[in-house]
């Protein structure tokens, strides 16, 4: 047996590991390349150019205001994207729907281009900042993580696992080795179990389950203190909740870039003790534990609806 406590990595220096998934405009403001007011002006320009699906269809003469209103009413009864609903109602055919999407894509004005257009930044500087931005975000590019075949939304689960592993090292300072993900019906209880729900393109529950020594390691790293003795359990547990919150915030930000729309619900402490956490019948339980140096328990899971 090794040391009782997991190895806590030294915190990284400025600009090193403590990066987060960001929006390009936010990165530019941080770099002082543009001001918040210029971002605002660029956003307004984007809004005049980047038409929503229905507005683009009307502008292309493929849809009337009345038909769009009918489709919006129908969406209250059936959860379908507008394009699919318009096809279902017979107002558009598949070819027209694809043509509208293609036109939206070809006319899309990105924030960087909008900033150039309003004169906030020139082309060469924009290219420079884009490269810097890519470097800043490179830490969030997903490596190959295998997911069992029966896992729904495998891409989403893959980058959820990837960001969890990365932030476990970078934010919580816990050195670990991932174990391949597996499908389970239930999880064993643990000293501290925190859950967070996600709703939207993916409906799922994210679970962070840690033994007390891992919670202590997370608290020491997150609060940057060596002695946690004076800290009440409430504070230590809050650091695990905050870890889960930051992980999912970054997952959702990355998911949006990939086209997902997801809302997250604040973390909750699950009082499970030695009991089991059963995966709800209509969901698939994806379990991705990590091995920590001293054999403590640090486990993650996603209960995902198909």
């Amino acid at each position: 047996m090794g040391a009782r406590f997991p190895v806590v990595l030294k915190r990284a220096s400025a600009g090193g590991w403590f990066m987060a998934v960001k929006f390009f405009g936010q990165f530019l403001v941080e770099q002082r390349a543009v001001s918040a007011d210029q971002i605002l002006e660029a956003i307004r320009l984007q809004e005049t150019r980047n038409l929503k699906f229905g507005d683009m269809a009307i502008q292309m003469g493929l849809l009337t205001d009345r038909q769009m209103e009918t489709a919006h009413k129908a969406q209250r009864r059936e959860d379908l994207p507008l394009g699919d609903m318009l096809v279902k109602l017979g107002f558009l055919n598949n070819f027209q729907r694809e043509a509208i999407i293609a036109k939206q894509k070809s006319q899309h004005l990105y924030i960087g281009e909008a900033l150039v257009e309003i004169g906030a930044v020139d082309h060469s500087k924009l290219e420079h900042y884009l490269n810097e931005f890519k470097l800043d975000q490179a830490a969030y590019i997903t490596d190959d993580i295998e997911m069992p075949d029966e896992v729904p939304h495998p891409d989403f689960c893959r980058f959820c696992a990837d960001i969890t592993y990365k932030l476990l090292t970078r934010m919580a300072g816990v050195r670990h080795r991932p174990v391949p993900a597996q499908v389970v019906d239930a999880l064993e209880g643990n000293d501290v179990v925190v859950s967070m729900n996600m709703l939207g393109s993916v409906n799922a529950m994210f679970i962070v389950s840690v033994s007390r020594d891992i919670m202590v390691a997370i608290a020491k790293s997150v609060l940057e203190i060596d002695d946690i003795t004076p800290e009440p359990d409430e504070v230590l547990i809050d650091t695990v909740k905050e870890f889960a919150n930051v992980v999912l915030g970054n997952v959702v930000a990355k998911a949006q870039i990939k086209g997902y729309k997801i809302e997250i619900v604040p973390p909750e402490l699950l009082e499970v003790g030695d009991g089991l956490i059963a995966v709800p019948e209509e969901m698939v339980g994806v379990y991705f534990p990590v091995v920590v140096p001293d054999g403590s328990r640090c486990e993650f899971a996603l209960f995902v609806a198909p």
Partner: protein
Amino acid sequence: MHKVLVVDDSITVARQLQKIIEGSGDLQFVGHAKNGAEALKMKATENPDIVCMDMSMPIMDGVQTLRAMIAKDPNAKVVMISSLAGVGDKFNEVIKLGAKNVLAKPFEGEQVLATLRAVLAGV
């Protein structure tokens, strides 16, 4: 010294920011409000130069509170905090409402200070 008010329901985030602010030398931590209602009261009593506020909180969330704060003081300097900072829609929404920037979590101390100083300097 510029006075900073932190608004976040998480004890962890408040403690992290307090430590960063107190170690800065030019910024003063004047208090921690746990929700939007408390934040509006403390904004009036503590008169901070800048407010760091979480986007999602119970009772009155960050976006609602930002709207109320800006309505009362259009020159208020507010930087939002979010693990969702990378979500473009959220970023656009709060910038339009008058926030000066968004701090992404996890934090990096120097970046937090650089952002707060830039906003205070009106950059």
